[in-house]
């Protein structure tokens, strides 16, 4: 068992475990923390895939940004309600069956395919390549993304503005 495999298995256990915790924990705040862990684990997976830049973005934006926003939201709503928000689940059995069915079928589909076992050698700096591609081939999409971000930001501010 190589170091890669050991790392993968560890990350996989962390990821799946924290993900399950996210959807099953009663305490909403804990769930967010579990999500942070899951996102961090994903960043590890990205590292395993030689995508250091993506891993960094994942940590900064997701684990940092989103978790912070969610925590803010929880704090705000809890303060408004004045009590701790615990969350319960419903239709657990049905959801499990459906989700399990979907999983089984996806895995079945994945199993039937032949995939390249070895990853090709990456030439040069991957981060640099990503940056160049973003700025050349996908520059238009990138600009549009900027507009989207701006719009989302303004929308979020508008929605969350204090009552007059």
């Amino acid at each position: 068992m190589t170091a890669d495999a050991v790392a993968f298995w560890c990350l996989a256990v962390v990821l799946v475990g924290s993900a399950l915790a996210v959807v099953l924990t009663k305490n909403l705040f804990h769930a967010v923390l579990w999500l942070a862990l899951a996102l961090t684990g994903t960043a590890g997976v990205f590292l395993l895939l030689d995508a250091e830049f993506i891993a960094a973005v994942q940590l900064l934006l997701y684990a940092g940004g989103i978790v912070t926003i969610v925590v803010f939201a929880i704090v705000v709503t809890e303060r408004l309600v004045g009590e701790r928000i615990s969350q319960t689940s419903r239709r657990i059995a049905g959801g499990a069956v459906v989700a399990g069915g979907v999983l089984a079928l996806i895995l079945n589909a994945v199993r039937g395919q032949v995939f390249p076992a070895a990853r090709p050698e990456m030439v040069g700096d991957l981060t640099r390549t990503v940056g160049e591609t973003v700025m050349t081939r996908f520059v238009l999409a990138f600009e549009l993304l900027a507009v989207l971000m701006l719009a989302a930001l303004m929308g979020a501010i508008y929605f969350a503005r204090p009552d007059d």
Partner: protein
Amino acid sequence: MGLQAYLTLAAIVFCIGLFGVMTRRNTIGILLGIELMLNSVNINLVAFGRYSGDVTGMVFTVFTICITVAEAAVGLAIVILLFRVRRTVTADHLDLLRG
């Protein structure tokens, strides 16, 4: 580790997210499930990109992360607004569009 392992992992995380979206009563909880699902998609994209020697998958991941952040920001803003108006964060109570 082969590509298959990563895809399997992503599929598991995706279905857990799906399960969360379907079962959570709290709107924020639902959003968390969605984050999980999007996350698993990112794993897929990066894994495919890496194994095919193409950076496009990673570029897309960057985009996806950005969009997800935007979605999370707007979504949570909506949750806060809803909470302010309806005094609830339980998704079942938000059924104004019931037929």
